[in-house]
Every structure is written in C-alpha cells, then in structure tokens.
C-alpha cells in the first residue's frame, strides 16, 4: 500500500468533521472520495497532508507514520496537496508559483525539466509565465495549482475539488491534464462533489457521509449503485 488511513478522527473545535475514516491506496491508482457538502472529504485530505492535526487514527505513507508531522515534512516525502479553491499566490508570477513547488531537495535538481513538463501539460500556462497568478482565469489558476504540486515530483497527488467553479471547457482541460499525470505513474487521490466526473475518472471510490465511509468499491460499480445517489442527496 502506498497510503493507508485507519480509523481517522478529526474535528474543528466542537464540530466533528471526520469520525472513523479508513482508506487505502495502492501505487499507481486513481481514487476518488465523493460525498455531499460537509461529509468530511476535505478534512480527510488536510489530515493526510498535515495541514490539520487528526485527533486519532493512523496515517501511513510507504509504511511511514505521518501523524503529527509538519506539512513540509510530509511534502518532502512526496505528497503534493492541491487545496480547494486553487490558492495560487496571486502576486507572484506563474513561473514563480511553479518554482515555489520545486525547491524541496527531492525536486530541486529536476526543476527546469519538471517546469517544462508542466508547461507541456498545460500549454496555456506557457503564454502566461511572466504574468501575475492573480490575473489568471479560474481554470488557468487551477492548472497552475496542479502544476505547482507537480513541481514537487510527487508520488501521491492530492486534488481537492479541481472542478469547483470552472467553466465546462476548463473542467475538461483540467481533467485531461490530471489523466495525463496519472498515466505517468503518479497516484491520485481526488475529492469531488461532481459525482460523475469523479467516478468516471477514478479506478476506485469511497463515499463519505457525515464523516464516515458508507460505501467503497470500483468506481464503475459505485456509479451504478442507487445508494450512492441516495447518500449524496442525504436520503
């Protein structure tokens, strides 16, 4: 297993966001976590990348315990988290944003080559390298955020709602890029509210409801399963 999460609990103050989530990813897989708003999807991701300290549970990456490690240490192991809402650095240029992802020792030497790969993956960014990231369109910012994560040369790429608020044509371009990244052997953990998008892309899926995994299985099966839609609509 590349990533194992066991019985994860996490909360924001008194709000219990995740109550016993377990999941596992094999190397090279593409896995989606789906569920309604507030089901605990993003919280689970934040615990994995260290942005939020879990209350209990175990997170292991390539056999190493991640609990309580600082985010930069987790990133150094090869986990890149592309947070929800893109979160590029608006006043830095596209090139500077990308470079920021590539300063870690694991990625530093390859930085120019990785940058070239990212620009090939998302050609629209190439025309914008000197432009401030804040002036990009939503879709371009999403591509930049993904590219910035890729600069780490991650083994695991965590994507939180990459389609959120994007025009359909941009969603398509973004997912094309993600699929391309997956083809090069990067394991992908994806959170989406857009059920079809997520499950059509992924090999396997987990359905979260109120901080718990209520269903899991091959993505194709989940797409057919009436319980998925039910859980989605909170029925």
């Amino acid at each position: 297993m590349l990533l194992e999460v066991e019985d994860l609990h996490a909360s924001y103050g008194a709000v219990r966001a995740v109550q016993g989530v377990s999941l596992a990813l094999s190397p090279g897989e593409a896995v989606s976590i789906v569920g309604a708003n507030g089901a605990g999807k993003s919280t689970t991701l934040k615990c994995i990348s260290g942005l939020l300290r879990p209350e209990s549970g175990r997170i292991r990456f390539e056999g190493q315990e991640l609990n309580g490690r600082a985010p930069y240490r987790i990133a150094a192991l090869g986990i890149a988290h592309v947070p929800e809402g893109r979160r590029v650095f608006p006043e830095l240029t596209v090139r500077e944003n990308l470079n920021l992802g590539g300063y870690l020792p694991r990625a530093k030497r390859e930085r120019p080559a990785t940058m070239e790969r990212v620009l090939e993956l998302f050609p629209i960014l190439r025309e914008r390298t000197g432009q401030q990231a804040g002036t990009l369109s939503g879709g371009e910012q999403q591509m930049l955020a993904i590219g910035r994560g890729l600069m780490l040369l991650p083994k695991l790429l965590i994507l939180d709602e990459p389609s959120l608020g994007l025009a359909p044509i941009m969603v398509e371009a973004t997912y094309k890029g993600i699929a391309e990244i997956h083809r090069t052997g990067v394991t992908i953990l994806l959170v989406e509210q857009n059920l079809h998008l997520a499950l059509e892309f992924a090999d396997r899926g987990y359905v979260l409801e109120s901080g718990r995994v209520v269903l899991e299985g091959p993505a194709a099966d989940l797409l057919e399963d009436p319980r998925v839609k039910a859980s989605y609509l909170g029925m």
Partner: protein
Amino acid sequence: MTRLDLRAPSVYVPMLLLVLALVAPVAVPNAFFRSVLIEAAIFALLGVGWNILGGYAGQLSLGHAAYFGMGAYTSTLLLVYGGVATIYGMWVGAVMAMLLSIPIGLASFRLRGPYFAIASIATAETLRLLALKFREFTFGALGTTIPLTPNAPLNFLFADKLGLYYTAVTLVLVAVAATAWIERNKLGFYLVAVGQDEDAAEAVGVRSPWVKQQANFVSAFVSALAGTLYVQYTYFIQPDTVFGLAISTEAVLVAIVGGVGTLWGPVIGALLLQPIAAVAQAQLGSTYAGAQLIVYSVILLVVILARPSGVVGVLSPVYWRALSILPGAAIDRRRRVAPASEVSRASAA
C-alpha cells in the same frame, strides 16, 4: 549583472537621486531641515526592517519597538557602563535583537492574523515594563543621556549631525540592498508565499515557521540598528520612547504609506511622513497640543483609503514612464531593464 552604462536613465537617475540625498543637508544648512532628514533616514531604516517580516512575509507586527529598543538599550548601556563605542555596540545590539527574536517568534508565529498582531504588541510592552522595572540597570523611567563628548565619530556623535545622517543613509542603502537580494532569492518567494497563503505554501513544502523566523532575524537586526541611531540622535533613552507603541506604529506606518512589501516603500513612506509630522508638530503642536496627530491621522486615512498599495503604487509607473522618455532611454529599452512584473506588482498590490 550587466555593465553599468552611465548613459542609461536606469543608471543615472538613481545615481542622481543618491547624490541629491547626499547633498541635500549640505545644500540647505538649516537645522530643522537636517533633523527632518535624519529622522526620515532613521525611520526609513526601521521601516525597511519591519517590511521584511511585516511586508514580504505578511506578518503584521505591531511590536517592532521590541527590536528597536533592544538595539537602543544594548548600545547605550554598553557605552554608558563599558565605554564601548557605539559603532561596535550597534552590532551587538543588532545581534541581541536577533536573539530576542527567537523567543518572540516561537511564542507568536503559531498565531495568525490579528492574534499575531496582538501578541506582537505584548512583546514590546513586556520589554518596556522590564526596562522600567530593573531601573538600577536600565535607569528606569528617568532614562539616561548619552555621555556627551564633542565630536566622537565612533559614537556617531558629530559636531553638526551630518555624520549621523550619512551613517543612517548608508545603513538604509545596505538594508535595501539586502532586501533586494532576499526578494530575488528563494527566501523572498517563500516569504511572499507564506504571507499570501500559509496553508498553500506549506502544502508545497514550505516550512513556514522557519521561513518566518528567518525574516524575523533580518527584521530584528535592521530594526535594532535604527534604534541605536535614534538614541545617538536624541542623546537620550528611556523605556517609553524606544519600547513604546509609537515606535512600533511608526514602523508600520512608513511601510504602509510607502508601500507594503515593496523594496523602496518604507523609504518613500518615511520621506513623506517624517516631514509632515515634523512640520505639523512645529506649526500646530505648540498652539493646539495634539493637533499634529490629527493632521497625521487624516493623511494616513487618505493614503490607506485612496491607495492601499501605498505611494509606490503611484510613483512606480511614473518613475518608469519618466525613465522611458529621458535621454538615453533607447539603451534601457534595448536591455529591457524595466521590470514589467515589478510595475504591475506595485500597482496591483
């Protein structure tokens, strides 16, 4: 680095400005004018120091008096007790401020936004109270004067204060150069990233507590130098003046008015604010006590409301426009010196 071509406006204009700064106090031998220039240089230095942590790294510190006062007290006490010349004591003070920045950083960097600002006020206040409390050592609320020796350059005591001005200008230039270096290197990008979105920065592997502490080190060092200069300028030290909230506020104001997170912002802010403060104080302070503060506040409000990016946001395009029409502009165009990103960054900030 391309060879400096004196015919290019991007070279000769800054040089002319520098010459202007150096010649101004000599050309106008007026004591009031000179003291305004010196104050502007000292607070420019403080502002440049603050800007590294408060501007680039986005940590709104309201407690830089802690570092300012640390520098001021260290060099002064070394001079008073040990007879250590200020030119050496100044660096000791700066290093002491760096050491001081470690516990301050450890205690406050886990806090974000307004909580960090409040904690930073507390650190300066704590030091002010300590300086008041240990009066056998620090001379307490009464303060102490600098031992006056006529013309002792090593203590920055000069017959006509011109020497102090040149010392301050030199330090400002060095501090700006250091900032420029940081801005162009990994640390600078990390600082801006942490300042703009700490979580996103950490997610790409930025070790934000350490990045902030590095900024804190430089910031403390530079601010402490300003503190030493300030005491050598006023010949007097007491906890309220060097550890007081007024100093912390001044550091923030020159940077905000000039342009937060820009290279020259704090310098321009100080050049603008200090004369206004001095004139308002001289014209109004004696007749209507406190009126100068009202004038000052109104100007601040206007700047902050009309130009949140600071005066640099207005001046920078004007500056580059001017360079592009001066004789020799063709050389600059060929070399593409105008940093398009810098212009747009300043106006978009």
